[in-house]
């Protein structure tokens, strides 16, 4: 008993990132009681994140902690750093002006949940961290305190609730068949091909797919993105998603998915459907955030491809994609929030805006180009690399589904042109009156420029992405 406790205490050293986040979250909550100044929360938020980042350690061997409940590796560390990097910017968003301390508390909770998702290796832990992330997300959705927010929050919650209930049911079946909650110890060798077990797998994976917004679990995405404060969306669309994909990969690995063809095929088809549905769905959107939300769904399809690819380049592709995806989302949501703060949420409100805001317009174009995946932006680099790896995937397995995946992915790029360019199209090609529009401030422009330049810079220097990917010692996740 004592040795166990000692082990646990010893393991806590590895958990410094998570612990500091948890502690920080509580500190901020308390701070909210003491200090009423909004700036303090922002500073606190940044401090907590930076502290956590400082305590993050890279370059370790893969370790199992707390029994085998958590699995730590370098990929996780890297992605945690990415999470911090993504989240830290939200304080600069104009929509982040009025948030209280509980907002930052929830935000940190969500990051914490996602960070733990990266290492969760036990059904119980998985369930808990998913719920932790979800609860934080549900709550954050309401933070605009409008009719719409509550509606979206409620839908999100009900949807999430059903998904997680089903996932829990699935988890219970998995537990029943394997007799263990530990992913690494799971073995269904004896009872293969039982319908009940398959149901369990499907339901459990469904719970994770919900987090990564893969079709058909993407339905919550548009309304949630629309109603949630934009700064929160920037985080929501990146951090839980990336964490969810890592988790999904671990689960698929544990279930030995490459041996279970129906599961693999299902997930592959869902990936294709995700790209298709996201792209087609986005075409008809007129609300900027809904539009980008559908785009994000399509991006999930791309990320899923990287997750499914069974060799090390898949990991690299995933890391590349994740990093750039995070960057692009930070940039695009920053721009969106700038416009949102001036009351512009619908696409046609942007008509003729170039007269007032040609500079930001240019940045919007670049970021959108990156989201589409055209040069000279890093959005192109990652798509190129992903397509390359998909080619290789086909070369090695020869499965026609992989070709279909590749083709749909490529075609979706053409379609995505339509909706991503809607805003630039309105801004530059249409005439309109924006008499009430007030120009953005210099600092806002500078921040937007930094984001955009990052997106461009990684195109010209992709080896940075590669170095990041290469520094992960354990490329097999």
């Amino acid at each position, binding site marked *: 008993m004592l040795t166990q406790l000692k082990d646990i205490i010893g393991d806590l050293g590895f958990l410094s990132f998570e612990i500091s986040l948890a502690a920080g979250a509580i500190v901020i909550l308390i701070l909210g009681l003491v200090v009423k100044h909004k700036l303090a929360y922002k500073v606190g938020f940044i401090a907590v994140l930076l502290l956590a980042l400082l305590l993050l350690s890279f370059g370790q061997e893969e370790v199992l902690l707390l029994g085998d409940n958590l699995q730590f590796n370098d990929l996780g560390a890297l992605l945690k750093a990415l999470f911090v990097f993504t989240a830290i910017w939200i304080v600069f968003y104009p929509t982040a002006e009025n948030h209280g301390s509980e907002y930052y508390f929830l935000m940190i909770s969500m990051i914490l949940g996602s960070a733990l998702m990266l290492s969760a290796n036990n059904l119980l832990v998985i369930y808990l961290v998913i719920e932790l992330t979800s609860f934080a997300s549900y709550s954050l959705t309401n933070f605009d305190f409008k009719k719409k927010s509550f509606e979206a929050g*409620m839908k999100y919650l009900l949807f999430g609730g059903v998904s997680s209930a089903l996932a829990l*049911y699935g988890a219970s079946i998995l537990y029943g068949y394997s007799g263990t909650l530990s992913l690494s110890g799971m073995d269904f060798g004896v009872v293969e091909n039982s319908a009940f077990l398959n149901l369990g797998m499907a339901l459990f994976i469904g719970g994770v797919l919900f987090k990564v917004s893969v079709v058909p679990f993407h339905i919550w995405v548009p309304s949630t993105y629309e109603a949630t404060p934009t700064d929160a969306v920037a985080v929501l669309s990146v951090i839980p998603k990336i964490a969810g994909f890592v988790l999904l990969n671990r689960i698929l690995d544990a279930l030995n998915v490459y041996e279970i063809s129906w599961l693999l095929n299902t997930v592959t088809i869902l990936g294709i459907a995700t790209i298709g549905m996201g792209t087609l769905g986005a075409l008809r959107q007129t609300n900027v955030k809904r539009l980008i939300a559908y785009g994000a769904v399509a991006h999930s399809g791309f990320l899923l491809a990287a997750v499914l690819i069974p060799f090390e380049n898949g990991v690299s592709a995933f890391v590349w994609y994740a990093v750039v995806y995070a960057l692009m989302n930070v940039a695009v949501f920053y721009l969106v929030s700038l416009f949102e703060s001036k009351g512009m949420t619908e696409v046609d409100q942007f008509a003729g805006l170039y007269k007032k805001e040609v500079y930001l317009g240019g940045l919007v174009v670049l970021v959108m180009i990156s989201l589409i995946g055209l040069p000279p932006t890093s959005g192109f680099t990652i798509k190129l690399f992903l397509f390359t790896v998909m080619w290789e995937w086909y070369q090695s397995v020869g499965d026609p589904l992989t070709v279909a995946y590749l083709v749909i992915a490529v075609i979706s790029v053409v379609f995505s042109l339509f909706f991503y360019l809607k805003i630039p199209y309105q801004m530059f090609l249409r005439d309109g009156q924006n008499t009430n529009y007030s120009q953005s401030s210099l600092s806002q422009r500078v921040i937007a420029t930094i984001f955009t330049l990052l997106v461009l810079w990684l195109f010209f220097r992709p080896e940075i992405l590669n170095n990041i990917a290469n520094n992960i010692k354990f490329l097999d996740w």
Partner: protein
Amino acid sequence: MSAIPLTYYLVLSAFLLCSGLLMVLIKKNAVFVLLGIELMLNAANLNLVAFSKFNPNLDGQIFAVFSVVVAAAEAAIALSILLNIYKKFDSSDLDDLNTMEY
């Protein structure tokens, strides 16, 4: 202390799950829908506990305890949102939540 076979538990939990699901799908009032979710969770809990009984370790039961707590937390969040919805919409009927319909 013997011998209610596992199948019985599973059937019961399946029944719970289905009725919960049915409730989620049919009821218009958000409170009932939430109740449905609770039922589904409890179906899962029942499974866990039952499996745990036929297993050497107690993980399942621990899991169930956790999940009960999580369910409570979920209910708390749900109800707080519901409260707000009731204020804004003057209704807790899910069909009235249609301002964002597309």
